[in-house]
């Protein structure tokens, strides 16, 4: 069976939960699929949930970094959620800056962070638009 990693949309965010052993092919495929979905769907955040990932080497770590950069190019911010402690220690010891991604404790935490920001930005947006409409009506 061909295994792929599902990409799920939840309200304003895409959620990718990695539950299977990451081969290079899978990583490359994931990069492409996420890039496509980020463009195609109206989302503003991306959570990569890795609590089931018990292994990340430099290539996979770099690919995750690239995914975040690609998403950023299209105005979407990325949070890495649930990084395993052993994996985190290994990454840090391998060399600083291996990941350089915003992280959250778990999926819930990540969604909270993103939604809070989105709500803030939305209310800001609404206020600005209300002001503008009021001005337009006056003139």
């Amino acid at each position, binding site marked *: 069976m061909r295994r792929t990693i599902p990409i799920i949309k939840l309200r304003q965010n895409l959620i990718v939960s990695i539950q299977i052993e990451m*081969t290079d092919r899978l990583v490359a495929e994931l990069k492409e699929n996420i890039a496509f979905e980020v463009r195609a769907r109206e989302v503003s955040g991306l959570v990569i949930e890795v609590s089931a990932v018990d*292994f*990340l*080497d*430099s290539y996979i770590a770099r690919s995750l970094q690239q995914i975040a950069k690609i998403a950023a190019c299209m105005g979407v911010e990325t949070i890495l959620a649930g990084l395993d402690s*052993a994996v985190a220690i290994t990454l840090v010891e*391998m060399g600083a800056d*291996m990941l350089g991604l915003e992280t959250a404790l778990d999926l819930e935490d990540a969604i909270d962070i993103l939604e809070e920001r989105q709500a803030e930005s939305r209310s800001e947006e609404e206020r600005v638009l209300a002001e503008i409409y009021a001005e337009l009506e006056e003139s």
Partner: protein
Amino acid sequence: MATFADICAVLGRHYSASSARTIARMAVRRIGAREHAVATLRDHDALLHELRRGMDLFAASATARRLCVRQLEALFSREGDETIVEVQEFEVAIVDESHIVEARTKARTMAAEIGFGRTQQVKVATVVSELARNIYHYAGTGVVAARRISGSRPGIMIEARDEGPGIADVEAILAGAYRSRTGLGLGLIGCKNLSDELTIDTAPGDGTRVKVKMYR
């Protein structure tokens, strides 16, 4: 037997060569020993204590310092009783990408059997993965093998061999001066940082043999 030069070499991985020599010399002097007689020392704890004091005086990150102490401990504790078990635990021929996964999975299982902690298992798997990946990307094909280290500090010895193009400037890569586009140079530095001992035998056109030791 750990000689003065061995100690300098371990320090030299984290400090400049002259700092390393100064630290070692100071420590040896403070315990009232002679540089040429270090190998015959019985009491390593005192030496280690002085080395640590010296290390604190020179700039290095906390991580590097911790790592250095661990490596010195490894150096002293291996005195005499370390044997590398001849029987190979596994050998994976790296031909296509799936073998990278195979090698790291086997390494992890083996690390668990030897009694490595969970974090250490991840480290072993990561080192094997990096080495296997380097083979796959740079040499095309090669072999990753592992043996058990028995003795007072059990461990694992990983060997990666290929007949690829070799590496021209290993020193520069390990010093972090060189960064490949694909970020693979980082992998080798990562291996060095994760392992207790890493030796590379390579020359352009002559393939690459990397030996890594990791203790429990």
